[in-house]
């Protein structure tokens, strides 16, 4: 389990390991769905170096709009 470099959520799990053993792993964040490969640049894999403009937290995630909007259910 790792911490998400983008939203700092805990509990990011491995979704894939390189078929050639030991080269890299791919992780996925359960909160913001960020995905990264361990061989990517530190500016992507290290939360302290992730671009501040693209960092997320619970407050920012709460401002996301639904696209497209969810319509009303039809009357039976």
């Amino acid at each position, binding site marked *: 389990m790792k911490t998400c470099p*983008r939203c700092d959520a805990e509990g990011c799990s491995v*979704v*894939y390991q*390189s*078929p*050639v053993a030991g*080269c*890299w792993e*791919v992780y*996925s964040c359960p*909160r*913001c*769905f*960020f*995905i*990264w*490969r361990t*061989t*990517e*640049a530190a*500016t*992507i894999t290290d939360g302290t170096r992730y*671009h501040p403009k*693209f960092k*997320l937290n619970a407050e*920012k*995630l709460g401002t*996301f*709009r*639904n*696209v*497209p*909007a*969810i*319509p*009303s*259910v*039809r009357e039976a």
Partner: protein
Amino acid sequence: MAYNDLRAFLQRLKDEGQLLHVEQQVNLEPDLGGAGRAVTRLGDNAPALLFDNFYGYERGKAVVLNVVGSWANHALMLGLPKNTPVKEQFFEFVRRWNTYPVSVQYMEDAPFYEHEITDEINLFDILPFFRLNDHDGGFYIDKACVISKDLDDPDHFGKENVGVYRIQVKGKDHLGIQPVPMHDMAIHLRVAEERGVNLPVAIAIGCEPVITTMAGTPLLYDQSEYEMAGAIQGEPYRIARGKQTGLDLPWGAEVVLEGEVIARKREPEGPFGEFTGTYSGGRNAPAIKVNAVYYRTNPIFETLYLGIPWTELDYMIGLNTCLPIYQQLKSAFPEVVAVNAMYTHGLIAIISTKTYYGGFAKAVGLRAMTTPHGLGYCKIIIVVDADIDPFDLKQVMWALSTRFAPGKDLIMIPNASILPLDPSAEPAGITHKIVIDATVPVEPDVRGDFAQTIDPPAATEQWEQTLRSLWNESLGKDK
């Protein structure tokens, strides 16, 4: 001229010197994104790129980029010589478009049914996903054909949609998708969600280029992309049935995913570096559960680089964005000569038209904004006279600089609709739009001092041919 599948088209590109096979081992990041950006700098005749040696994967995985990322490759897609000028490609496109519809051909033996997975799906086993641009929220499938139906009218073949939407890979069998409200798939999703049921979808990855191009074309809601692909390729389009969804699928696809959009659910998606040249903001977007995967042996993952224009996307959707606006405008106003909506998918469009009375050009410009595509694009419309080639920006700039009077020829429409990805929209989805009338005023709108334009001297065309011949001869002597 039809290509049965992506592999047939890649072979044609190879035969024409338009496919560059990069054999050295590369990292999925940042090499593929970097190469995708770099190839756009090689000019209007740049090749497609094939990579098949990735750090961490056994040999056998392949990625192609920039498949129609040049006018040369676009011409080959149409079965034309690779040096066919853009304007000729446009009018050939128009000619074939007018043969719509061409009925489809159902086939039983789709190559993608060679392998089938319905349990313990892990999409990463099948395709080498990667990040394109540094701040993308994940790995994307950005050039696939997404097929869905209108559940209120499921037997209407024309309403079955084939579209290209950005798809974020979120997990082993879990995707995010972004159909913006103007797109046909958003209508299908709205119908399903009003009914409270999941929307069945199929995602076909790695198709021959005509159906992918048609999937990126703003056809009318009840027009079939498959029947239009048949018109463009000059013979019936081959399709196969999805085993789980019953949806119609491009027969030659490398990989097909079948699944469902989960009704009334949204999840964080993005940002993603978009065709506008900027990152879209993050949004809550629909989610897809993948239930089945079908694929050919050693499937080819086709993707395209997106970034500041021009990229492959601009070649892919340039002419086919012009076409429906041209056709729909011409049906209302036969005076329209040509439409260039090649820039940023038609956020700006240039229309050349004949004008018979004052105010006519402005009406043509306003009509473009109310075409189906114009509702989400056509933020800036430039209308020029019939003597101006809208594909020649030097001529357009001449018309703008000499025929446009800012005090009389600018119309602004406040608070109009626009696609949410336009970074200047405020709020997202709303913008002011303008029509710039750069035509010479005609009766009764008499104003200005538009003297006779300078026609070329009588011998000009003859001399152009003579000079070209002499120049070619002199180049030959120098060799």
